[in-house]
């Protein structure tokens, strides 16, 4: 028997203000979604902003009615959406826990049983008896989160609330979510973190413009999603970074240009770490070849990653033209935004320059952090004698 069932649900928001001539009759937030969940299902929902995820959650939670289609939910839904929105500023944290319990249908005695646990989890200490308006945003988030996870939810919906407070609390929060999931209830998690979805969920939905694009195992769906986001990002990166292309020349006869080639795409702005990269430079200097070609790669925060000088005498052709490819097999730069500057320098003067910004991503993000370089570090282990 399914506990959550949606049948061809559609949700259309009427247009705000006077409709423009030729504009659609409204915003279709959810388009023909059918879904069935039973106990033990841990569903992850991914998709770009505006894909309809929040609206879908609201429909499942009963906060919004579908325009058409049917919704059947068996069991009480607990939602963790905009954290802290239900907190009453003027009463103490402790009182808020009781108030929230009442809203969830629990008596004061029910709350009394778990209140010490909730307070301990929140790590608010003496502040628990101070009015909530004296709390910092981090503290409010901790209180809200602690309140919600200590209730035994039947159907738990979490909308991207996992990154609250400082690192240690965030870890505790994630651990708690796992605990709840392990108790075999239904979990619906909306997240931008593929890692969370892959870790916690056993099923994944990709929503785009209100439609289900893919429904399957988290690993498979996340991979397809990331792939499509890459392609879209590259287009965006090209647009964003094209305006940062600077080409300057002090001398009319001199010029230099750079292209970033990866795979069979002639010039990219979104590069994959670990794949080969060909930095193709062409330029024209003076026929006496008394100039240098400098290539610098600088990270967005100013750290210099690469700085090389190539003498014209060694690398330029007899007519003073340069056709040089700097090949990195593989590219080991870590995920970040960089700028590459190439210049032809004569007697310490940069006669002509070209700059291009680009972004590096990695398809295998490491769990220990974001290293500066993605480089093979092997550890060979020998069995004991």
């Amino acid at each position, binding site marked *: 028997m399914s506990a959550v069932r949606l049948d061809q649900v559609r949700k259309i928001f009427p247009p705000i203000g006077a409709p423009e001539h030729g504009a659609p009759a409204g915003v279709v937030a959810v388009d023909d979604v059918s879904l069935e969940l039973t106990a033990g299902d841990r569903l992850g929902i991914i998709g770009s902003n505006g894909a309809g995820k929040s609206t879908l959650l609201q429909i499942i939670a009963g906060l919004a009615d579908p325009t058409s289609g049917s919704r059947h939910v068996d069991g009480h839904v607990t939602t963790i959406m905009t954290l802290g929105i239900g907190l009453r500023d003027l009463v103490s944290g402790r009182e808020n826990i009781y108030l929230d319990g009442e809203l969830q249908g629990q008596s004061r005695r029910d709350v009394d049983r778990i209140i010490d646990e909730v307070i301990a989890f929140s790590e608010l200490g003496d502040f628990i008896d101070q009015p909530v308006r004296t709390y910092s945003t981090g503290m409010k988030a901790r209180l809200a989160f602690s309140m919600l996870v200590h209730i035994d939810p039947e159907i738990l919906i979490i909308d991207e609330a996992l990154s609250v407070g400082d690192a240690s609390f965030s870890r505790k929060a994630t651990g708690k979510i796992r605990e709840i999931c392990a108790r075999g209830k239904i979990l619906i998690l909306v997240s931008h973190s593929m890692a969370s979805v892959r870790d916690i969920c056993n099923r994944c939905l990709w929503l785009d413009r209100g439609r289900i694009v893919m429904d399957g195992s988290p690993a498979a769906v996340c991979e397809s999603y990331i792939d499509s986001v890459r392609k879209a990002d590259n287009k965006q990166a090209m647009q964003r970074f094209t305006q940062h292309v600077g080409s300057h020349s002090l001398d009319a006869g001199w010029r230099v240009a750079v292209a970033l080639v990866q795979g069979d795409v002639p010039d990219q702005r979104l590069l994959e770490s670990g794949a080969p990269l060909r930095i193709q430079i062409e330029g024209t200097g003076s026929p006496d070849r008394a100039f240098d070609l400098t290539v610098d790669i600088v990270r967005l925060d100013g750290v210099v990653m690469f700085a090389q000088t190539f003498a014209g005498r060694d690398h330029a052709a007899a007519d003073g033209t340069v056709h040089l490819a700097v090949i990195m097999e593989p590219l080991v730069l870590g995920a970040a935004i960089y700028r590459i500057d190439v210049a032809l320098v004569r007697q310490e003067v940069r006669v002509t320059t070209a700059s291009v910004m680009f972004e590096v991503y990695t398809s295998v993000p490491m769990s220990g952090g974001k290293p*500066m370089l993605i480089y093979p570090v092997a550890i060979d282990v020998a069995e004991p004698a």
Partner: protein
Amino acid sequence: MSNPPVAVHCADVDMEFPLASEISWWRLVTGLPPDAPRVRALSGVSLDVPKGEIVGVIGKNGAGKSTLLRVLGKVFHPTRGEVRTRGSVAGLFELGGLGNPHLSGREYATRYLRIMGVRGRVLASMLADVLEFSELDAAFERPVRTYSSGMAARLYFATATAPRHDVYLIDEVLAVGDEHFQAKCHERIRQVLTRGASGVLVTHDWTSVLRLCHHAHVMERGQFSFSGSSDQAVVAYLGIERPPAKVARLVETRPSYEAHAGRDASVPLMIDIVEPAAIEISISIEQLRVGSGWEIVLLSDWIRVGDRVGRYHATVRIPALPLNAGQYSLNVFVRSRPENPLAAPILHDIRSWTVGNGLTLIVEGVPAAQQVSLPFRVERYGAGAA
């Protein structure tokens, strides 16, 4: 010997708030009795910021860091103690306080700058700077209520740092926004410091403190529990206990290991598995330059060691070490993963500067300006041939 000029000075600052239940208008006007119960947010805090530097204050939520910042920014007046600042002060506290969500980004920035006293042509050029730094493009003209929290954070930070000030008091602002934005913020802060401005950064994000501050204080319950160089402060703040190392442990580690830039590096490690468990190991190599940068340069995956009791030899191999000459921090982690895939892994042993027992990797070679050297080769190609 003359002391360097101090941009922010506070001595023995106490900040007490009477309990809300004790406050009434009449009692305030006539003067509260001295024994009225009060909440002590700060006790005996003293802090000096030399000109041109930024000092960090790390602490958990509720430790009193935000209150301290507001006392320094003269939003609150301390119950005891003195506060002196030199020059104009910019307080980057909870931003957006002036905002009305119906205002567009441009209107918000204009309102803020006008309140700060900026007008005319300077105002116009600052608005252009805000637009550029925040990367909002067309959204700049749309109402703030249509912004995502990241966009709003970019707007507020860009606006607050547009006018030039001598002292910047920054509260957790850098915690919002993605990494690219944080990188820009760090860069902006560095520029500001180069100009001779000073600052206080208050946060629970110790990586920011490590990257921007030479000195830092750890704040706990309204007092400084530690003051010193940023890396020491981070160790005190993280308070990571050395794991018991009962199930598995690293043995016979040397305080330092050597390698050579550009050559294959190999670091020998020994692990004893004392009780049967599925043991894994990973290492990281970090560069720690207090106040200018902290970075994980190289990172390994979690590699399986074994699950039977015994002494295992593990060798870390890095082909053609891409690090240039210098001293790096070598960190080793030993953990086991429990049967239940949903449960968190358990750390059994650790060597890390954050725990106080870090190892050093000394890389020999020709000194270079950059930290890393990317492997590459060059190839000439004919005109017309791709």
